[in-house]
Every structure is written in structure tokens, then in C-alpha cells.
């Protein structure tokens, strides 16, 4: 984990905003540190929304978009700092992906993905327990809009107000989707 010396002499983790400032100046090593720092939550978020196979591609696209838009990042106006900004970009990438594929193709992909999950090559999944696999499938069965709000909330830690703003829906709608999604998951996991 990257460290920087503070004035008191103790070491501390360099903040995301500090790394972004370095990235804005062209320091790609700072970008690499950010990729490493957010790999797990961002990859999981993308996997839950777009499936394992697309998650890799979307993750790379997200970070390239971060690089393209680094100059526009302003921690004071980014609504909570780097993490919500990053997930905002990732969410836009997922939405682009969904739009470009279309409903019919997405349905086919979904079926294929479910079949792939049962195949031995998904090493990560193979190590999961039966409960984990059931939960993954239950999440996949959620409607896209419910799944998106629920996963965005869980992995990004964004406020509900920010999520509603990002998705362009009323706050009540966003909260209603979260509620319905949690009830549905509970039912599916019984």
C-alpha cells in the first residue's frame, strides 16, 4: 500500500484525492495505485451487474475513462470524493454496455452466464460455497434497475440521494428499488 510521510513523521496511506492530483499531472504510477486499491470492490460491482466475462473489459474501460477525465475531477464538487466518482463512471460503462447489447442479446448472455457459472473453468466460483452460488444466482435474477441500486449502494457506499441523482430517478424510487430487491433476495434465498 502506498504511503506518504506526514508532517508528524508517521506514515499514512496517501489519500485518493492526492493520488488523483498526481495522476492529473501525468503520474501513471499513481493511477496504478488507485487501480490496485479499488480492484476488489469495483470488480465485484461489475461482476454482479455485467457478469464475470464482461467485468474485466468494463473494468479496463472504467479506468481508461478515469484517465481521460482525470483533469475534470474536482474533489470539492465530486460529491464525496473519488470513490463515488469512480463508481459513477463504472455505472455509466455498465449502462452503455446494457444499452449496446439490447434486451434480447442480454437475455441470451444471461442464460449463457448461468451455464458458465456451473462449468469448471470459473475457478473463482468453484471455490464458493453453495450458499454463495445461490446468492450469485439470486442477484442475477433481480431486475436490472433493482440490482443496480442495491449493488451501487453496497459497493460504493454512496448516499441514497447521490444514487438517485446518478440514476436520474426520484429518491423514493431508488429507495423503493432497494427495498424490493432486498425482499426478493430474501425470498430467493429461503
Amino acid at each position: 500500500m502506498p504511503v506518504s510521510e506526514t508532517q508528524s513523521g508517521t506514515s499514512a496511506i496517501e489519500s485518493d484525492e492526492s493520488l488523483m492530483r498526481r495522476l492529473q499531472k501525468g503520474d501513471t504510477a499513481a493511477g496504478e495505485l488507485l487501480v490496485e486499491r479499488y480492484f476488489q470492490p469495483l470488480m465485484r460491482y461489475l461482476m454482479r451487474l455485467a457478469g464475470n466475462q464482461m467485468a474485466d473489459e468494463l473494468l479496463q474501460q472504467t479506468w481508461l475513462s478515469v484517465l481521460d477525465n482525470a483533469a475534470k475531477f474536482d474533489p470539492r464538487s465530486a460529491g464525496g470524493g473519488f470513490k463515488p466518482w469512480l463508481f459513477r463512471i463504472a455505472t455509466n460503462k455498465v449502462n452503455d454496455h446494457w444499452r449496446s447489447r439490447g434486451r434480447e442479446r442480454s437475455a441470451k448472455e444471461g442464460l449463457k452466464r448461468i451455464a458458465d457459472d456451473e462449468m469448471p473453468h470459473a475457478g473463482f466460483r468453484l471455490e464458493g460455497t453453495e450458499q454463495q452460488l445461490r446468492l450469485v444466482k439470486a442477484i442475477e435474477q433481480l431486475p436490472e434497475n433493482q440490482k443496480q441500486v442495491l449493488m451501487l449502494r453496497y459497493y460504493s457506499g454512496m448516499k441514497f440521494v447521490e444514487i438517485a441523482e446518478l440514476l436520474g430517478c426520484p429518491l423514493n424510487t431508488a429507495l423503493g428499488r432497494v427495498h424490493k430487491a432486498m425482499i426478493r433476495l430474501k425470498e430467493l434465498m429461503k
Partner: protein
Amino acid sequence: MVEQLDQTSELLMYLAGELSHRQSMSLEKRLVADSALARELESLRGLQSNFDAQMQVLDEKRIPGQAMAVARIARAMRVHGVNQEAVETLAPRRVLRMPVWAYPIAAAAAVVLVYVGWWAHQPETHVTSVAQVSVPPGSLSTARTSSDQEQVMFAELTESFRDHNPTQRRSLDSLAHVESELAAIASPMHDSLNDPFNNSPILDNEE
């Protein structure tokens, strides 16, 4: 908060700690008084903790291959950055030499100039103005010009010579005088040619 929240939304916001202090205080008072509302809150709390617990189980193991994936993305970012720099170097931003508003004005001026140029080269077709120009009596215009336009030009030139150059004026006067004498001589000849039975003064002289 601008939007009016319904009851479940308000409870979810409360659980998430996203209500304002005033709203939280108000809700807590209602929770004390309303047992059904309190039960719903507990139900939502249970639902939320159940979901969080399941997700923690799902994500308890790290995704393998992080180092490779990070290295691949970092490499892609470096290549992308280099490509972006190359594109910016090869195609620098075009800077306008003049203000933006100058271009439409220049275009309009060009159109006007083209029109004026075209108009200036058009042949003059209006003859009515020719009739209004007074041709001085005794000028050579009737004898030397063949069209109305030339007559007018000749008359104007004659007038300008008369006004500005005394020597030329005298020459023109003498020319006009000669012209009138020639016209007087030619007139009976013309009449005799038209009337063969009339005696011509020229023939008389020959006799």
C-alpha cells in the same frame, strides 16, 4: 430534503443515517408513539442486516489474479496516455486568428462584393434615361453615332469639352457649322433623288 419521502423510504434513510437531525428526532418521537412503525423499522433492519451478512459471505474471498489484472490495466493506461499525448502533439488545437464574429461578417462582405462585381459587368438595357439627356443642337451626334447609347456618350463628351476647353469648343463650333452647311447642301440633293421630276440645282449648274 425537498422530496416528501414515503414511510418505508424514510425508515431506510433513517437506518442509513442519511436523515437530517431534525428529521431523525421527529421520526424517533413517532416510533415511540407508533408500535406498527417501530415493527416496520425492525423488519427493515433485519432485512438490511440479512443482506449485508449474505454479501459478506459472498465477498469473503478475494478475487484471484488481482496482480495480473492490475498490471494489465496499468499497462493499458500507460499506452492510452502515450497515445493521447501523441494525438495531441500531432493534431494541436486549431486556434482562430480572428474573432469568431469576424468570419460571418467577412462572408457577407464577400457576397456583396461578388454581387457588385457581377452588377457592374451587366450590359445597360434601360434606354429611357437616354431620352432625358438633352443633346445640344448642332452637335455632331446625329451624324457620327449609330445607337442611342453612343449618342448620349457623344453628347456628354461634347458638353464637357464645351465647358472646359475653349480651343476645343471653337473647333466643335466650326465643325458644327460645317456640318450644318453640308446638311443644307445635301438636303436638295436628297429631295431631287426622291423626286426625279424636280430640277436639281446641281444639274442646273452643270447645264
